[in-house]
């Protein structure tokens, strides 16, 4: 286990070094990624220029939601972005290499890409989060920070599992482009705003099917003290992370079996 972790970080380091070979590209990608996130911040700031509360949430409280989602996804981008290369690898046969090495194929796939520019998103997310927390009236307790940290880490697991799962379509439909995984990944933007404003349909989807809400809205309500929030909501990130990781590993195994059954 320790050995696998060590190899994981070594492989990531290799990708990092590769990425730094192209320094200009790193900055452009980082700036581009940040600008994308900034769009929703700009929207928020403009929006709150005309409105004082959204579904009972203040601007700063909503920034907490934004920050949690951004940070979680940023970390995922740094460490597990290789899954977006799965389709290309399956199609050109590079995936075969993964099967003849004595380390788990999933680990190899995670480290297949260097998206170290994810650090931009992570930093922005943390800044936004801290800003939001500072300006909200938070009743700090001993568990506030641990819950927030747990939320971000579980958020990383969730976004990584979902992007992993959706990219596995490549096993069954190698010609499918990455439009579908991108679409699903983008649905996390719903969780950047309080779920109270949405209709019932979306609330259910974002809570149960694509549980982005479990790593932003529910824990935030608890920490920020918005409305009545039962204590067990502190565990929703764990539920989301656990369930999604389980689903991903089950489908991954199926996908591997399929690949070994039909080749490419």
């Amino acid at each position: 286990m320790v050995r696998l972790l060590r190899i994981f970080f070594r492989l990531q380091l290799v990708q990092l070094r590769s990425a730094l070979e192209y320094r200009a590209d790193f900055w452009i990608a980082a700036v581009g990624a940040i600008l994308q996130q900034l769009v929703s911040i700009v929207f928020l700031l403009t929006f709150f220029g005309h409105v004082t509360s959204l579904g009972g949430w203040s601007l700063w409280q909503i920034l907490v939601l934004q920050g949690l989602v951004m940070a979680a996804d940023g970390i995922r981008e740094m460490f597990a972005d290789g899954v977006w290369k799965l389709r290309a690898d399956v199609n050109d046969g590079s995936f075969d290499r993964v099967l003849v090495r004595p380390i788990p194929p999933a680990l190899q796939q995670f480290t297949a890409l260097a998206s170290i520019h994810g650090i931009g998103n992570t930093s922005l997310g943390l800044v936004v989060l801290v800003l939001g927390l500072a300006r909200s009236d938070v009743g700090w307790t001993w568990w506030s920070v641990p819950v927030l940290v747990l939320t971000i880490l579980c958020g990383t697991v969730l976004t990584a599992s979902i992007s992993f799962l959706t990219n596995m379509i490549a096993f069954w439909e190698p010609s499918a482009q990455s439009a579908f995984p991108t679409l699903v990944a983008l649905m996390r933007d719903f969780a950047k705003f309080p779920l109270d404003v949405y209709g019932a349909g979306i609330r259910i989807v974002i809570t149960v099917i694509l549980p982005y809400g479990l790593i932003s809205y529910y824990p935030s309500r608890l920490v920020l003290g918005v409305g009545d929030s039962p204590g067990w909501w502190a565990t929703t990130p764990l539920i989301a992370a656990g369930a999604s990781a389980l689903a991903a590993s089950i489908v991954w195994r199926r996908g591997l079996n399929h690949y070994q059954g039909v080749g490419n």
Partner: protein
Amino acid sequence: MTAIGSNTPAWRGRTTPGSKYLSLARTTLQQAIAYRITTFFNVGLTFIWVIILYYLWRAAYSGRASIAGLSWDQMRTYVVIAYGINALVGWRTGTAMMAAIRTGDVVFEMVRPLNYCTTQLARALGFTVVEGGISMIFTLVIGLVFLHIQAPATVASALLFVLALIIGFLTKVLVVFLVSLLTFWTLNGMGLMWSQQAIMQILSGTIVPLALMPGWLQFIAKVLPLRGIVSTPLEFYLGKSGGWDAVGLIGLQAIWLVALWIVANLAWKRAFRVVEIQGG
């Protein structure tokens, strides 16, 4: 042995310059049709924010009739149509061009007796038929069936809307073209695309109508050409502008279009020269 007749080579009789570009557009259209499912998802992707914005504005408008001069009906209409317009020129136009530059395939373009800028415009047209078509379906279904958007304010405003839309389409293609050209000097196309998309979303009035922006941002947005892509057509659609005001807006769009066209043509010729010096 192939029979002569139905397979006569296409070069027979096709020598007028105009049709060169049209046939390019047609080829791209065929490619785009092959990718229709991907396009469907990509357009659907952009409509996620339509849904988010719908709910957010609905919450904002509960308890008040107008914000910055826009009613709830008008705001809803604005959001849907803004994204519909944005989806007319999707991601494919820019990435196809950048990919050709990155892989070096662009050398084929360099040795053809064609205007590179017009070529990309023709390609964009090909893509837009499909991307625009699918976008229109989304706009009509989501807009009319689910969100009950308004029709154009008057017939005159509908006509002005279409005119501004066309100029805006050309403007967007030129901006995407200019940004994609940067790939000659850097390598990371995705970063450039993200930056351009983000800035465009803000300054064209897509994410938020210009009228709602803080003064300084509004000023910047009104001066730049990006507003002509989304904001100006919508101002006509909603009947917010007429008479001399409308003339002024269209005039501004046109001036920017010409300016961008000139810059674009200077830029690509410069880019090609740079590549030649470096030896490709």
